[in-house]
């Protein structure tokens, strides 16, 4: 039986970094550490993409300081991605960043058959614009509601409450969870979280797994993708990951 003239295609998996580039990120090597962590994670990310050919991993990045701008505007296959360093300076227009991402998650341009996207928000401080408005705009988008939303807090000045709002409902029960802001106190921890988000989470998001939905909407299982366990070395802050610099 000859194969018909139809187009088969893997499903797009959009991975978006939302990176705080405010002036405070210039202090204590945070900006360099973030650039390094993302650059070093790319080979692992590409390997995950190779292992999951049914998912087409496409990376973008937003930088926010005085304003929010696309750092990588076009969805870029991870194997083609070359990371250009972010630079710090300005305030923290996090709300504007969320609105930028909201527009990108509308359909179109999002494809209806896409896999749930992965959003990773990285910040060391507090938003200086209307974060609530930006979050409302973002969560109005169905794809944002379906997305895996992670947040990495750099240092002790990060606004954990804001980051939790971005992630979603606190799972409760205390302890560390991927559904709470991941607190990176130094470059090593940041690199491990970035590695985890860009490989283990991407691997989980690449696998099409159906889940149960309730009759009135919503899901019996919190979150759209079952998140893998966090790297064990960052579960306990007393683990030897180096001094807490930030």
């Amino acid at each position, binding site marked *: 039986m000859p194969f018909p003239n139809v187009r088969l295609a893997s*499903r797009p998996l959009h991975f978006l970094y939302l990176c705080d580039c405010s002036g405070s990120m210039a202090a204590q090597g945070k900006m360099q550490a973030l650039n390094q962590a993302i650059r070093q994670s790319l080979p692992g990310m590409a390997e995950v993409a190779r292992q999951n050919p049914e998912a087409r991993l496409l990376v973008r990045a937003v930088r926010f300081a005085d304003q929010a701008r696309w750092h990588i505007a076009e969805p870029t296959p991870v194997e083609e991605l070359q990371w250009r360093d972010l630079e710090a300076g300005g305030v923290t227009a996090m709300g504007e960043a969320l609105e930028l991402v909201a527009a990108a998650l509308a359909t179109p341009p999002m494809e209806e058959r896409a896999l749930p996207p992965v959003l990773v928000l990285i910040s060391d401080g507090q938003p200086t614009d209307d974060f609530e408005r930006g979050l409302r705009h973002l969560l109005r988008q169905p794809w944002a509601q379906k997305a895996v939303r992670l947040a990495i807090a750099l240092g002790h000045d990060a606004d954990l409450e804001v980051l939790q709002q971005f992630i979603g409902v606190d799972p409760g029960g205390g302890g560390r969870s991927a559904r709470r802001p991941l607190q990176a106190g130094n470059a090593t921890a940041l690199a491990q979280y970035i590695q985890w988000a860009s490989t283990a989470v991407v691997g989980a998001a690449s696998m099409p797994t159906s889940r149960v939905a309730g009759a009135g909407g919503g899901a019996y299982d919190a979150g759209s993708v079952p998140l893998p366990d966090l790297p064990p070395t960052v579960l306990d802050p007393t683990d030897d990951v180096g001094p807490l610099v930030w």
Partner: protein
Amino acid sequence: MSPWQPATACSRPGAAHQRRGQGSQDWAATTQLRSREGLPLQLLAVADGHGGRRYTRSATGSRLACESALAAAAAALAEQPLGQGSATLEAWRRWLAVELPQQIQADWLEAIERDWERRQREESQGEGQDEPAAFSPLLYGTTLALVVLTPRWWGHTGLGDWDLVRVEVEGAAQLLSEERAAADVPGEATASLCLPEAAALWAPRAALHPLPARQGSFSLLLSTDGIRKSCATDADFLALAAHLAQGTAPGDAELAELLDRISREGSGDDVSLALAHWRGPEHPLERPPGQAVRAPLAVGVVALAATAGLAAGLLALRRPPPPKPAAVPSLPAGPSPPPPLVRQEVQRLCGQSPAAILGTLRSRRAQFEELRSGRLTPAALLAAADEDPLGALIGASFDPAQRTMVQGTPRGGLRLCAALELALQQQWLDQSRGGTHPPPAAVPIPEPTP
């Protein structure tokens, strides 16, 4: 001969599952049976077990879902006559939307509990693998779709993210049914049999489609979501459906290879489908030489036996069917020779022992009742002679005016052997005395208009 070509079902594990050494969580199955009036029917079912970590028994859940659906539908179709008329169609539509889902839901819950108990016993004997601590239907969660094919109508019902496409003979394909996901339902979430309110979720996916007497050929493709999600666009999905519907009927291996490629180059998900073709009165399909009814692949196949009193199993097609009449003919005013198929049936029965003849007629007690009560007409049975020659013989032996066996020339024209004549006479006498058959159940059948 059925106006529906024997259906095909095929289910393949997804490329992603195969790479991980995991089995499929999909299931697909078809079955053939006869209605209470002896009309040929078919059932198609597909199911997709949920893939998340907590749904550890969803592969079993999808298999049990298909089995429960086919069994429940077969039981009801064998019990209730298909009948005719708008009120009857409405009753069947309600059955697809309400009563059948309730039955399937109940049967499935029983089946998964039995499976759980069996696994617990095996584990206690050291045979089973580690099992979750407590039973929950969630472990077996699955979607389910069912299509019912009769000579007079066809219908569908189910819940979850399956798709149903209709392809016309000229190639136009239309998506007839799909799951409409709520905006706030995250990710790959879908309706499921494991939900307590599952039976109520079927109605939006249920519909009945009457088949006009001169309905032209068309095909139906029922599939789990892995196929549609593997196509770049919905237009590609419909083109694929049209290709499958219109191409030369593929062998099992070819279809499996096609599905494997779809998953490998597409979504990576498990892929399952069931395919049916309505021949239509004007475009009898050419049957490939040696084309027997295909038993679906072992991965996703169930063949069920019909309930008591009706023939079951797979039919082997040997020739194209004769064209169906445009309308049910009325009985001729005067005596007329019985159709050739009825004469052939007489010869066949007369070759049996008297006990066998009696047993054969007793198995059709329902048809005798329906004729005597007026809910079935001899003309309807005679019109379906090519599908049910025995039913046509029974119809030809009945005099509606006297509500008993025909006498005189019509009786003589049947050329019955003594044993067959006696057995028919016995059946009609039993009916006139009220018989011993239980009254018909549930689905309301309209009284014939005077």
